[in-house]
């Protein structure tokens, strides 16, 4: 599908910020994505239209979150949006699974084919964390996080990207802070080492929707 026809898709225009849907913006994003260190990644602020993001936040707050804890993480998650009783969130997943959206992401990431999407809601509160890992599984191509709360440096919860050497993470290269309506995404590789830093504060909530664009052969 040509970029121009993707950008004029009524489906995308119903949800996404119209300023994003220009050829120039997509080309810029594509360059930023491929040139970013320590591995290809990008962020898009004001990703959804304002009215849309408000509805998503409201709808997600009505869902059930399940506490999970292991050596690697401590957080609460919803089920995949395929399995929750929310027409809006199911529609959101349909958007991410749509040919138009996946083609748009292909243009940005230069990854040719996506054919599956996982998507769920997350809440990290005081002391919750996700330690360093690479996300790599055969079919995962792009990991994404849509932030639904603002957190500052003292509240933690940022996405930390690590430099790597000889296949192991070394030092912190970059921190991406949660900001309402910010979409962060990165290419999943054997060196895409990242973590979610501990959230600090009893009344601090890091709420997000995350998932993967996948290619299942």
């Amino acid at each position, binding site marked *: 599908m040509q970029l121009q026809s993707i950008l004029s898709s009524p489906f995308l225009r119903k949800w996404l910020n119209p300023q994003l849907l220009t050829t120039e913006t997509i080309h810029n994003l594509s360059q930023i994505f491929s040139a970013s260190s320590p591995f290809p990644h990008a962020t898009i602020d004001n990703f959804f239209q304002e009215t849309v993001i408000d509805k998503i936040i409201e709808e997600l707050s009505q869902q059930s979150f399940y506490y999970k804890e292991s*050596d*690697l993480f401590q957080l609460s998650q919803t089920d995949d949006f395929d399995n929750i009783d929310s027409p809006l969130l199911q529609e959101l997943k349909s958007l991410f699974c749509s040919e138009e959206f996946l083609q748009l992401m292909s243009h940005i990431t230069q990854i040719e084919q996506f054919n599956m999407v996982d998507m769920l809601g997350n809440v990290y509160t005081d*002391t919750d964390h996700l330690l*360093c890992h*690479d996300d790599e599984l055969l079919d995962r191509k792009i990991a994404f996080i849509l932030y639904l709360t603002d957190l500052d440096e003292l509240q933690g919860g940022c996405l930390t990207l690590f430099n790597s050497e000889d296949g*192991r*993470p070394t030092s912190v290269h970059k921190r991406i802070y949660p900001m309402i309506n910010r979409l962060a995404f990165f290419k999943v590789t054997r060196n895409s080492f990242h*973590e979610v830093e*501990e959230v600090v504060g009893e009344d601090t909530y890091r709420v997000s929707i995350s998932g993967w664009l996948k290619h299942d052969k």
Partner: protein
Amino acid sequence: MINESYRNDALRHQLAQHFMNAELPSVSMFSFFSESTLEHLVDEVKGLKFVRHDNPIRYRYSTASIPAYLTELLNSDDVIEFIQSIIGKQVESINGSILRFSWKDYTILHDEEITGEGYEMIIDMTPSWEPDWGGIMAYVDGEGQVFALPVTLGAVSIVQKIHPFQSFVKYINHYAKDIDRFLVKAEIIVER
């Protein structure tokens, strides 16, 4: 040296039974060392020089060699005899190191960490620690079942490592502030 109550044969027998029958063969003893011995150990640990280990995908913590006083104590007749009575094997020696975990430190389960069969001794050397701060040492069997060790100053745990045995130390959160957690991790070498 060791607390008088742990010289009692009936108690040793009871502990040995517990060790053998536990899902993960293990037993934890509270106040195992006498109060003066424990105080001495805590003082020694505070003065040690630690080396940092930082591999974010697997661990973040520091280690120090066991001081001579503790090596002698662990390899004393009292301690060796006690352990033999619990695990039912002849013990040759006990060697290990002291681990220090600060805020943001942890160890993660990792395939390369899977160790062979054997016996391990963990001594909790942390005064005033809250389990809510993290830092709990836990063992995981091959099916993902988790067995957490008690968080009490002076608690001594003996664990039999069973393949594919792994252990981890839970991430230490910000409530620990500048308090460090100290654990002695020692291998119990038994006669083949």
